[in-house]
Every structure is written in C-alpha cells, then in structure tokens.
C-alpha cells in the first residue's frame, strides 16, 4: 500500500505453513474483521486469552488440549414446521475435507439452551440429524450437555466427537454436518415468523479441536512445488506484492 514493500517470497524458498495457509484461507482485503462482537467471536477471544499471553506466547498451563481450534458457524438454517410446542431448525455446518494433516481430537456444539423471543422463554437443545432417518418422536431430555466454561448459563455444550469422527472425518470431500436445533415453548404464542427470524449465527456454533499430525509437521520441511502453484494461482497477496 502506497509503495510500502510487502512480503517478498523468492521462488526457490520453501513455503512456510503459515504463509501457505494464509494464502489459501485469507478472506481478502475487502473483507474486514467483524466490528460487532458476536457470541462466537467473544468465545474465541476468551479462549485465546486463556491460552496465550498478550505477546502470543502459548501459556504453559493452558488446558485447551489441542494445537488448533476451529469455530464453525452454521452455513444453512432451515426452519421446520412446528410440531406442537416444539420449534425446529436444521443447522448445516460445513466440514472441510480431511487431508490427513490434522487429527480431530474433539468436536462439540455450543448452543443456546435458553432462548428469549419477545419476552417468551424457550428451552432448547441440539441433536444430530440425518435426512434419511427422520425421527417420529421428540426427545424429552437433554442428556449429554454441560455448561461451556466460557459462556453464560444460557448456553450449553454437547460433545459430538464420535458422531463427527464416524460419519465425516474420514471423508475426503467437503460435507455438511446437520444438527437439529429444537426449542420447546411453554405458551403457544410464538409465531413461525418470529422463529424464522432467529439468526442461526446467534444460537449455535461448532468447535473442532485438532492436533498436528506427523504430515503437517513434515510439510514445513518440504520444498513445495507449493511456491510454483502459488505463483500460477495469482493469489491476491502476491499480486499486491508485485
């Protein structure tokens, strides 16, 4: 910008994992960090502050249990017809294909346990959803959920590690993890329009915990063809560098 020199990546230099990932995942210059702190960003900032100091050094007593945590927001949100006093949304979370670089150690969904819509209180929970096997019964309990440590009492966290590992993790293609978000109202007053207006971004998010595999550590020592690929792809970062 304004003639200031940026990063120079000589063609023969090995691509650092950080730079390669950022070139692949960068949201682009026109995108900006969110100005409003939603629940998801607040959660990750709290997680970061607990795990690293202000200089970015990982804390020795961190309890995160993983070298990487990805918070995934729902990509799709389909409101289902109301069943009695139950309101249901199907949330779709995109899962990246597993390239063997990282080992999934834990997967949880953090969701709004108590939801308020214009003064009416709803009690909610989440369960995995499969299109081909619709359940005819509605669950009566919320077994398996606990209060997430970084959120208020209105939120709960449910472990779905086994579900994700068995159904999605070994799949090479990108998949959508669908979860059913179900809320029960005491009074029959909440209309469908109000329910549909509930933003899926505010009611649930997925947390995926990963550790590096031998492949991901080894990747740092490889001489990519990475560099040639990046030059050919004409990434925005390199275009700006030129």
């Amino acid at each position, binding site marked *: *910008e304004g003639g200031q020199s*940026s*990063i120079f990546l000589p063609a023969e230099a090995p691509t*650092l*994992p*950080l730079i390669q990932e*950022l070139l692949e*995942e*960068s*949201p*682009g*210059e026109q*995108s*900006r*960090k*969110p100005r409003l702190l939603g629940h*998801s*960003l607040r959660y*990750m*900032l709290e*997680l*970061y502050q607990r*795990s*690293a100091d*202000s*200089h*970015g*050094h*990982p804390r020795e007593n961190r309890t*995160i249990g993983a*070298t*990487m*945590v*990805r*918070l*995934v*927001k729902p*990509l799709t949100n389909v409101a289902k017809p109301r069943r009695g006093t139950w309101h249901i949304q199907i949330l779709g979370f*995109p899962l990246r294909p597993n390239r063997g670089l990282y080992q999934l150690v834990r997967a949880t969904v953090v969701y709004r346990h108590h939801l308020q819509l214009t003064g009416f209180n709803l009690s909610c929970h989440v369960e995995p959803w499969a299109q081909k096997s619709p359940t005819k019964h509605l669950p009566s309990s919320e077994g398996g959920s606990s209060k997430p440590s970084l959120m208020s009492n209105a939120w709960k966290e449910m472990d779905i590690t086994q579900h994700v590992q068995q159904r999605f993790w070994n799949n090479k293609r990108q998949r959508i993890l669908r979860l059913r978000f179900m809320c029960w109202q005491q009074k029959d007053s909440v209309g469908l329009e109000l329910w549909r207006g509930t933003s899926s971004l505010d009611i649930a998010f997925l947390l995926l915990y990963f550790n590096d595999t031998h492949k991901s*550590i080894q990747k*740092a020592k490889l001489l990519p063809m990475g560099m040639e690929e990046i030059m050919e792809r004409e990434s925005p*970062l390199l275009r*700006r560098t030129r």
Partner: protein
Amino acid sequence: QAGSISAEATASSLKDSEPENNQCSLHPFQVSFRQLGWDHWIIAPSFYTPNYCKGTCLRVLRGDLNSPNHAIVQNLVNQLVDSSVPRPSCVPYKYVPISVLLIEANGSILYKEYEGMIAESCTCR
C-alpha cells in the same frame, strides 16, 4: 601437521577480533501484523516479536553458540583451503511458537499454535 594447522589458525584468530556487540547475537524486534499486511485476517495478537540474529561469526566460535562441527570445519576451509567457501553465518538456533487467532474466508474463526515463529537463540552455521 595438526600442530602447524593449529598454530596458523590461532595466529589468524588473534587478528580476527570483533567488538562483542558486533558478534553473532539475538536482537529483539517487534512487528505488527498490520505492517505485514495481515491485519485483515489476524485478530490476535496485534504485535509479535520474531527477533532476528545478526553479527559476525568469529573464526574461533564461542561455545555458547551451539555451532555444529561442520561450522568449525567450514571456518578452517575458508581460512586455510579455499576462501571462496563462505564462513558460517549467524542464524537462529532455537525457535518458539506463537498462538494466533484468525478469521477465515468462510467466516470460521481459528485458534492455532504455529511452530517456529520466534527466534529464541542464535548460532553460527
């Protein structure tokens, strides 16, 4: 032969004096991700201190530099055999990681520990 080589090397090293603050050492250096042009996807930290290594590698390498035997040999080769073979360079020896909070293109938020981000000590090699 070993005695004569040792004498030559010692004689040369006595001429090879460098003020201590010019010798190979670790220098602190802080950058912001804004300066690197990465501030639109890195949420935290705002700054980080990668440090760098700079200075002269003497012909007689200090023990605290943790130089491999190859560096000692390369010094001797440069001095006694072929001056076109370069002397060892002052480069990082140990690194430590940092934790970064990123926002990805699809809106996901990522906490990640990246190895090899901060130089903690230097060596001549």
